[in-house]
């Protein structure tokens, strides 16, 4: 029923790409140009035209993906073809160049093409691997749902805190807890968590902001506090708070992992897409230049 983009319609475009590759290789093998194989022979021009059209078509996926009314195939079909024909482009481009490289605009286009394709391979890899991990990590919840839970846990903590010091501790831990953040924080699955410990609980800390990474500090401080208290109302509150922050710790880990997986699923596009446009520019330059100094 469900098919991944690699299996789309029994890997229809794999066969198309293979056919294109085989034809290209056969033509290259059969072709005996004057001099070495290069872009300037008739086969070179042919492969170059095919390659350029492929590049433009591959770029059009961005348009097709957003042309929601389009009935020109399905986006999945396009993506499947994008993957396979993009891979075939590697071969077509290389044969077009006739394995001739140098420090010039032509090789720049080639290198950009290779980098774009390789980043695409990474994209396929993450698309194959991470959706599962994301599902397992979220285990039926949604990101909004998890955030909501955090919010509720925080509210509860605020209500439970029954001394000024506990309140300040809780407030500080909640305020200092950052979820998400910069692209690097999202990708690394970290998030800056800082807090300051009220003077009464830890005079050494001087109420300075300290790292509360993974909510260890707040849990440590609460556990400490509990060990100091013999019992009474505050002890009950601290016990509840400990449970609360432990719950929050677990939730946070899941949220951060979720954010991380989402970021991994997207980060490659931040290379793939801009480099594609770089490639387009290099391609335009390449084509103009080739005919400018014909």
């Amino acid at each position: 029923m469900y098919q991944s983009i690699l299996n789309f319609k029994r890997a229809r475009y794999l066969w198309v790409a293979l056919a294109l590759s085989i034809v290209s290789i056969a033509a290259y093998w059969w072709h005996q140009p004057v001099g070495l194989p290069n872009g300037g022979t008739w086969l070179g021009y042919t492969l170059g035209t095919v390659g350029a059209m492929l590049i433009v078509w591959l770029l059009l996926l961005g348009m097709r993906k957003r042309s929601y009314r389009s009935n020109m195939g399905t986006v999945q079909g396009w993506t499947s073809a994008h993957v396979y024909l993009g891979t075939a482009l590697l071969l077509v481009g290389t044969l077009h160049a006739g394995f001739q490289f140098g420090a010039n605009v032509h090789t720049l286009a080639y290198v950009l093409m290779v980098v774009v394709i390789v980043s695409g391979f990474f994209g396929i890899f993450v698309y194959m691997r991470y959706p599962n991990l994301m599902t397992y990590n979220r285990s039926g919840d949604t990101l909004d749902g998890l955030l909501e839970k955090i919010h509720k846990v925080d509210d509860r903590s605020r209500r439970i805190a029954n001394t000024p010091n506990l309140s300040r501790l809780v407030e500080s831990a909640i305020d200092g807890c950052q979820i998400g953040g910069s692209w690097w924080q999202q990708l690394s699955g970290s998030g800056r968590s800082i807090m300051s410990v009220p003077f009464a609980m830890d005079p050494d800390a001087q109420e300075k902001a300290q790292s509360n990474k993974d909510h260890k500090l707040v849990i440590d401080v609460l556990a400490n506090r509990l060990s100091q208290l013999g019992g009474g109302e505050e002890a009950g509150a601290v016990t509840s708070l400990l449970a609360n922050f432990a719950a929050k710790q677990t939730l946070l880990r899941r949220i951060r992992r979720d954010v991380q997986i989402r970021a991994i699923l997207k980060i490659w596009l931040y290379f793939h897409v801009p480099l594609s446009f770089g490639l387009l520019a290099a391609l335009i330059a390449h084509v103009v230049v080739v005919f400018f100094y014909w």
Partner: protein
Amino acid sequence: MERFDIAVIGSGPGGMSAAAHAAELGLSHVLLEGSPKHSNTIQKYQKGKHVMATPTKLPLRSPLDFAEGTREYILDKWEEGMTSTNTNIQYGSEVTGIDGAKGDFTITLANGSKVGAKSIILGIGVQGNPRKLPCPGAELEHVQYQLDDPDEYNGERIAIVGAGDAAIENAVGLAGQNKVCIINRRDEFARAKQGNLDLITSSISDGKIECFYEANPARIEENPSDESRYVFVLSTPTGEVPVPIDRIIARLGAIPPRKLVESFGIEFPNDSPAALPELSSQYESNVPGMYVIGALGGYPLIKQAMNQGYEVVEYIQGNDIEPADHPLFVEAFDGLPYDKSVDEILEYLQNSSPIYNGINPLNFREFILDSKVSKRAPGDELCVNGEFTNSFFVVIDGNAFVKLPGVGEFHFNRGDFFGEQSLISGRRRTATVYAGDDCVVVETPRRSMVKLINSVDSVKRVLDEAFILRALHSKFTPNTAHAELAEVVANTELRTFDANQDIYTEGEEGDEVHLIRIGSVTSVKQSNNKEVITSYMPVGHYFGETGVLGHGVRTDTVRANVRTETICLSKDSFVTLMDKEPGLQNEIQSHIRDRLTVEARMEAQPKGGELMSFLMGEGLGEGTDVLLIDETLCVGCDNCEKACAETHDGNSRLNREAGASFADVHVPISCRHCEHPHCMKDCPPDAIHRASDGEVFIDQEACIGCGNCVRNCPYDVISLQKNPAPKPTLLHWLMTGKGPGPGGKEYADGETIKKAVKCDACKDNAGGAACVRACPTGAAMRLNPKEFVDLVGSRFGS
């Protein structure tokens, strides 16, 4: 006690028109309106709502103006009209009882005063009045019975009274910017939908909303200390509790008008909630001197009601004028091969079929006006096999026929009808019907037919009998003449089962065979002390045959997924059928074999059964077209939502992330196009339709944004949305990133009109649903519940 010649109750379009016409004629009259404003239903339309004046060809007969325009424009025109005609309207005059007889009626009002009248015109509609707070202070200024836009209120203390969906939605909607408490007469929220229940309980536990359980309103007092407007005194098990409050919103439901109307002595033909009182052709009810017009009389359109108001006054005056819809009939009958007057044709039509026998002429008139009477060229396709259309056909003259492979043509002659299968089952057409020679047919839309079935018992009976006969014939004995089945049909009964009700259970004795005609069932087996779903059966499938052929002990439990109706055949009946059709036994044995194979497969994959139970539990059993997402493929790009928004006026009708998941199959919040759509149940402008391919969609032009469908949908797939402003082109966004991108939206200033939006499965797109087409990884797929078995097979398959 003041006395009038004519008392009009209810100031809807019909009532106002009647009163204004009476005023115009200088008759002694009064118009009694329970609320402080006229045209209650139309007042509830959203601001700026464009109201159509349909049917456009129907001439208007009323002293009041009515042409299409905004809600405000129309209300203003009526206001003007009543002023200029000097209509005597009394607001706040809720009628609680009527005594007396023609010429001397006494009308009792809620405030205790009485009004006398010779004739009474009832124009109270079908919406009913909102139930008022049963305590002193219920009429205070800031006590209201509806809420249009929660965003209008800020920083107030608001009490919501009620425990239904409307109350919960209002409370949650207001809680963001106001201090809200909810007053629940019971100790739980039993009547609410699951989603709303979750919403309110979490809001209460989070402290966002305060809840008074087992609390009844005692009284509302003006607050002398000025801290708040009022003090709302509640009586609770622990005594009275005063609550300072600025505004009270009571959502206690509406009082259905039927009881009130019945208390006036007017009779209804049956108990169906949709039944309408029987009226004469002059709108007079069984109580002489008491007339019914407008929606309560079966005429929901504004223009019709206004015309009736005019006509009914004329009738009371003794003028037998021709109804205003006369020209419509002249037009509708144009092209028919009859040289007869409109009334003669109507009579000819009504006499054509036994199904029309029990209908009173007034209702029939309306019925024919809703229907399409036409002469069809021989060979025309009247309905097409596989389509989801659900209109109903009666042959008036000539014939229509179906082609039965191997049998020949089956002809429908004068008075015969067809199309009842799709009408009743909510499923695709099972055959294509072609027009024969000289074919004249009446084609009636579902809504009119449902109204008719509910109003006239004989129609239901005739249809059911035909349904059973044809279902048995086509399913079991296609080669046997109809006449031979009469006995079996007579011994067959229809059984109705609620959702999740067991039709029979594993191990019990039983030898009846069920053929599903509405709903769907699943077959469940005990395996290792666990229930395993082994098959899913929609309409048209039969089960229980193993009990007949075997030793009479059920080998599985069959459970209704949704409200289900079956045609139940006794063992004897079934054996009779097998005797009549020599090939049937073999066929049934092969059917059993096929099912056993599927069941064995499902039993071998208990996880598959769990997945199936999950899908059924999500209510997908009553769907016809369900969006499912494979979580192993979904990368969370939300392109499906963007595609939905982009192809549907900027509002996505699906929420990908929300919704439940099981075994990597995710059920997003998205319409599953139920066989019997809950949303269609109560749509005042009849804006929700089913397309020929089964897509349930909302006609945006017609939608008045009342939110009934939103509340009626058990799956939360309908929402009220404003129309976003037009966006720059895609290329513009791709290059500049300015403005909302795909899936994003911005609203124009002052845009306030909200309308209900839901998935229409992209019925107008030849390529199919945009969400599926736009999914880059193939994670989104639309399935028919019948395909769930394949899905399970592909998930856990061998």
